[in-house]
C-alpha cells in the first residue's frame, strides 16, 4: 500500500515538475517580488531601499493615477455592455441559419485574428480628420465640418469602443452562439403554438436561457477591459492629453518614462488586487451555478 502511494507521488512529481518549475520562476516569483518592490524605492541600477507605504501614498495623492483609474473604469463601463449586446446580436443572426451562414460567421470573426497593431493602424486611418476614410465618406454625404474622432474628448471613447467591438466581438459571438444552441428547440415551438410573437419568445425563452453565459461573458469582459493598454496605446497614445490613458498605460509610463519602478509596481499591485476581487466574484458565481445544477440534476 505504501509502495503504491510512493509510486503515485513519484509519478505526480515527475508529471508536474516541468510546468511547476516555469510557473514558480516566471509567475509566482515575480508576483512575490512585486509585492516587496512596491514597498521600495528602486534606483536606476535596480538597487532597492525599503520605504514602507511611501509609493502607495504618492499614488493616492497623484491626480494622474486617479485619472487613469477613472479612464479605465469608463472604458469598462462603455465597452462591456456594447460588446455583449453586439455579440448577442451577431450570434442571433448566425443562429437564424440564413443562407451563407458560414460566410457571415467568417466575416464577423475575421478581425479577431488580426494583430492589434494592424487593427489600430487601419482604424487610425479610418478615423483621422481631413484624410480619414470615415470623414471622407461623411463629406460625400454632405457633412461640412471635420469630426475629430480621436482628438475630441467627447468622441474619443466612442472611437476606441468602436474599434474594440469591431476587432473583439467575434469571441462573444461564438460564446453566445454556443449558448443559443443549448436552448431547447421545443420551447420555441410550444410558445409558437401558444401564439407568442418574436419579442415574447426572445424575452421569455432566449434571454432566460442565456442568463448563465451572459453572466460569464460579463465577468470575463470586465476583467479583459480592466487590462486596457494596447487598444488605446496604439490608437490614441492615451490622448487627447491623458484623457484615454489607462492604468496599465500609466504603469508603463511610470516605469519606463519616469523611471519610478517602485511607484509603478505599487500600481501593479493595486491592479492585481482589483483583478483578484473580480476573480473571486467570478468563482463565487461559478460555484453557485454548479451547486444549482447539482440540485437540479
Amino acid at each position: 500500500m505504501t509502495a503504491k502511494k510512493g509510486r503515485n507521488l513519484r509519478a505526480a512529481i515527475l508529471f508536474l515538475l516541468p510546468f511547476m518549475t516555469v510557473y514558480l520562476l516566471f509567475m509566482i516569483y515575480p508576483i512575490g517580488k512585486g509585492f516587496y518592490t512596491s514597498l521600495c524605492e528602486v534606483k536606476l541600477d535596480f538597487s532597492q531601499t525599503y520605504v514602507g507605504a511611501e509609493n502607495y501614498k504618492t499614488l493616492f495623492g497623484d491626480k494622474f493615477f486617479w485619472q487613469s483609474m477613472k479612464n479605465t473604469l469608463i472604458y469598462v463601463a462603455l465597452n462591456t455592455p456594447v460588446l455583449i449586446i453586439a455579440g448577442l446580436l451577431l450570434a442571433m443572426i448566425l443562429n437564424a441559419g440564413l443562407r451563407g451562414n458560414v460566410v457571415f460567421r467568417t466575416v464577423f470573426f475575421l478581425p479577431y485574428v488580426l494583430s492589434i497593431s494592424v487593427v489600430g493602424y487601419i482604424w487610425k486611418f479610418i478615423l483621422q480628420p481631413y484624410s480619414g476614410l470615415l470623414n471622407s465618406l461623411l463629406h460625400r454625404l454632405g457633412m461640412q465640418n471635420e469630426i475629430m474622432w480621436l482628438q475630441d474628448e467627447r468622441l474619443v471613447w466612442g472611437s476606441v469602443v468602436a474599434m474594440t467591438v469591431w476587432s473583439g466581438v467575434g469571441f462573444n459571438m461564438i460564446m453566445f452562439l454556443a449558448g443559443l444552441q443549448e436552448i431547447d428547440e421545443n420551447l420555441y415551438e410550444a410558445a409558437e403554438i401558444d401564439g407568442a410573437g418574436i419579442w415574447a419568445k426572445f424575452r421569455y425563452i432566449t434571454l432566460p436561457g442565456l442568463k448563465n453565459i451572459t453572466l460569464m461573458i460579463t465577468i470575463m469582459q470586465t476583467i479583459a477591459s480592466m487590462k486596457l493598454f494596447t487598444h488605446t496605446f496604439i490608437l490614441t497614445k492615451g490622448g487627447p492629453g491623458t484623457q484615454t490613458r489607462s492604468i496599465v498605460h500609466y504603469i508603463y509610463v511610470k516605469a519606463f518614462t519616469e523611471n519610478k519602478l517602485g511607484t509603478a509596481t505599487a500600481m501593479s499591485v493595486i491592479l492585481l488586487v482589483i483583478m483578484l476581487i473580480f476573480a473571486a466574484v467570478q468563482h463565487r458565481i461559478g460555484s453557485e451555478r454548479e451547486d444549482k445544477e447539482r440540485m437540479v440534476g
Partner: protein
Amino acid sequence: MKRGKIRLSRKFLYLFAILCAAVWVAPIIWMILASLKPQNSAVTILENLVKGPFTLENYVEISKSEIWTWMKNSLLLGIISTLGAVVMDSMAAYALSYIEYPRKKLIFWFIMLGMMVPVEAEIIPLYQEMVELRLTNTYASIILPALAGPFGVFILKQFYDGIPRELAEAAKIDGAGYLRIFLNIFVPLSKSAIFALGIFLFLGSWNNFLWPFLTLTSSKKMTVPIGLPMFNSLMGSDMVMPMAAAFLASVPMMIVFLLFQKHIIKGITMTGIKG
C-alpha cells in the same frame, strides 16, 4: 398570413445581416485595395480606390524591409511557446486529474492562483527578473513567461476529468504504468481539445503586444506586432506602404484562421463553458 409575416421578417433579418457583414469586412477590403495603389495616392477617395492603376510595387518595396524577419520571429516564437506549453500543460493536467496523492487539491488551487493574475500586473517585476537573468532582448524572455501561464493546465484538467476511468483501469490491469496510460489513453482521447488549445495559444502568442514590446529592443529580434508600428512611424503620412505591410503581416493568421476555424471556435467555447 402568419407565414407571410415570418417570411418578411426573415427578409429584413437577411438584409440586416448583409449590412453588418459589409460594415465588418469594409476595413479589411479597404486595407487590401489601398495596399495595391501607387505610393502616396489618395486612398480615401473611393472611385480612385476601385479604379486602376494597381501595382505590386509596395509589396516589392516592403520585402526589402525587416518584415520577413519579424514574421519569422513571430512564427518561431509562436510555435515554440505553443508546443512547449501544450506538452507541459497536458503533463501537469494529467497529474492533477488522474494521479492520486496527498494535497492534490491544494496544488490545484495554487496553480489556479496564477490564472487570476494578469500578465499586465506583473510586467515590472518580470522585467527586473529578466534584467537580473540577463535575458532581456532574447527569445527566451518571450518563451519562458508564455510557458508559465496556467490556462492550458486548467482547460486540459477539466477535459481529462471527463475521460472514463474504466479505460485507464483496464490498461492498468494489463500492466500499463502512468506514462503508458498518459500516452496511450489520455493524450489520444483529448487530441482535439489539445489541438484547439494549441491554436488558441498560438493566436495569443502571435498577437501578444505589451511584453514583447518591453523586452525586445533590437529590430532583428522583434515580432510582427512590435515591428509594424516602428515600420509605420518611418513612413510619415503615406498610408499605402503601411497598409501593404499590415496586410502582408496578417496573411499567415488569416490562413490559420480559414484552415482551423472550427478548432478556434471550439477553443473559445471550451474556455467559456468550462471556465
